[in-house]
């Protein structure tokens, strides 16, 4: 119970801090809306069908926008040594990591839903016959993303290059997730049956589980001196 309580404490604290400061959700949300507006005006929808390109645009917006927020995961932790206080507690490092991943997931998933909403609004997207499957694909992709993003945010927060370093470290590792995410989303928007995306969903799930496992094991080596 203590282990779950420690995870819950981290999630509660991170979401309460975000509710008070709104610094990450505001940056990610603003990016999502601006990207939607720009894409809307940059494409002639009489030439290119929104259904054909929306999947790539949605995931690109999610990844770039998400990094704006995930990259600042440890920003507030550094103020007045707050994270040092966490490290002096008996909370296992993997519990701290899972708690921060869970809080980041909540934030990123909200942004993912916002991105889909924005693109639906601007492009008049038809979400197909299985919007629940689309939500699942976005959830699995977001989980894999924050699992890696949280780990590498901890790595980059202790460096001079900081947030500049994060995309360089994370983007290459996100390629599999983006490929399967775009593929699943594209097929769903094209009205393909669920059976056509089960493989992609499995790959997204496997990526998320692998990223979580690696992150939980490596996190302690990143945050301990």
């Amino acid at each position, binding site marked *: 119970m*203590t282990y779950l*309580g*420690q995870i*819950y*404490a*981290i999630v*509660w*604290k991170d979401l*309460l*801090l975000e509710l*008070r*400061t709104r610094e990450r959700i505001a940056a990610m949300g603003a990016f999502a809306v601006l990207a939607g507006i720009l894409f809307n005006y940059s494409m002639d929808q009489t030439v290119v069908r929104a259904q054909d390109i929306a999947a790539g645009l949605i995931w690109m917006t999610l990844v770039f926008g998400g990094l704006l927020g995930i990259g600042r995961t440890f920003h*507030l932790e550094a*103020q*007045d*040594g*707050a994270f*040092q*206080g*966490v*490290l*002096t*507690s*008996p*909370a*296992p*490092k993997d519990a701290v990591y899972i708690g921060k991943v869970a809080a980041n997931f909540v934030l990123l998933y909200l942004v993912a839903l916002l991105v889909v909403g924005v693109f639906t609004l601007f492009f008049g997207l038809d979400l197909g016959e299985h919007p629940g499957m689309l939500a699942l694909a976005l959830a699995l992709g977001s989980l894999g993303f924050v699992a890696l993003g949280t780990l590498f945010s901890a790595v980059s927060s202790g460096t001079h290059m900081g947030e500049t370093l994060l995309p360089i470290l994370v983007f290459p590792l996100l390629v599999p997730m983006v490929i399967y995410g775009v593929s699943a989303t594209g097929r769903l928007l094209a009205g393909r049956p669920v059976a056509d995306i089960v493989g992609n969903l499995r790959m997204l799930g496997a990526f998320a589980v692998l990223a979580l496992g690696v992150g939980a094991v490596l996190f302690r080596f990143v945050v*301990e*001196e």
Partner: protein
Amino acid sequence: MQSAVTPQAPAVARGAPPVLSARGLTREYGVVVAVDGIDLELDAGDFLTVFGPNGAGKTTLLSLLGGRLKPTRGEVWVGGERLAFSDTAWRARIGVLSHQSFLYAHLTVAENLRFFGKLFGLTDLNERIPDRLEQVGLANRSDVLARQLSHGMRQRAALARALLHDPELVLLDEPYTGLDPHAASVLRGVLSSLKDGRRTVVMVTHNLTQGLELANRLAIQVRGRFGWYGERDAVEPETFEHFYHHVVEAGNA
């Protein structure tokens, strides 16, 4: 004037093991030896102040004693239990107060304490938090954001956080840094309450006056080593500054 106290090895033959003991504690950063073969042993009720110039390795020593830093060589025992970095349960026996508050600026004092209390697995927080805030004189500030507190109040809130889980070992890293005389006096009063015979306290500071006030044991650390380690009663406060400079110069020679 002073006779050095020989640090003893961790006692296993005595009735109760010492609350804190270190043997051959060493931490190296490449070719730099920040802490060099320190031995010490402290029982319940002991208050050790470690003095030393900047760069002497005092904060590194405290980090090693608190298990925040892994020693290159040597070992630390808390309550007869050797600190192992794979297991963090022993951290529940240690409270740390730094010149940084370790508090989240956008959480209230009570929210900070509740958060850290949950990390320590405490279940009686509704009783414990008001009690600790009363102890540090912040009972009427529980709903104030940490960033809205003065530096002195933030240090007292940080002390409430460090004592929340009733640790048997308290580590204080330059707790008076940046405090005005009144705030320092208030904090000193709170720190003196730690001398209740149950706790062991280690404080590092380069302020000789504040460091002498509460301690019953003293150490002067120079270039990673204890240049002198002994009882507080063995020194005269009036001549301690002269003695301190003598030890530092000898250690740097």
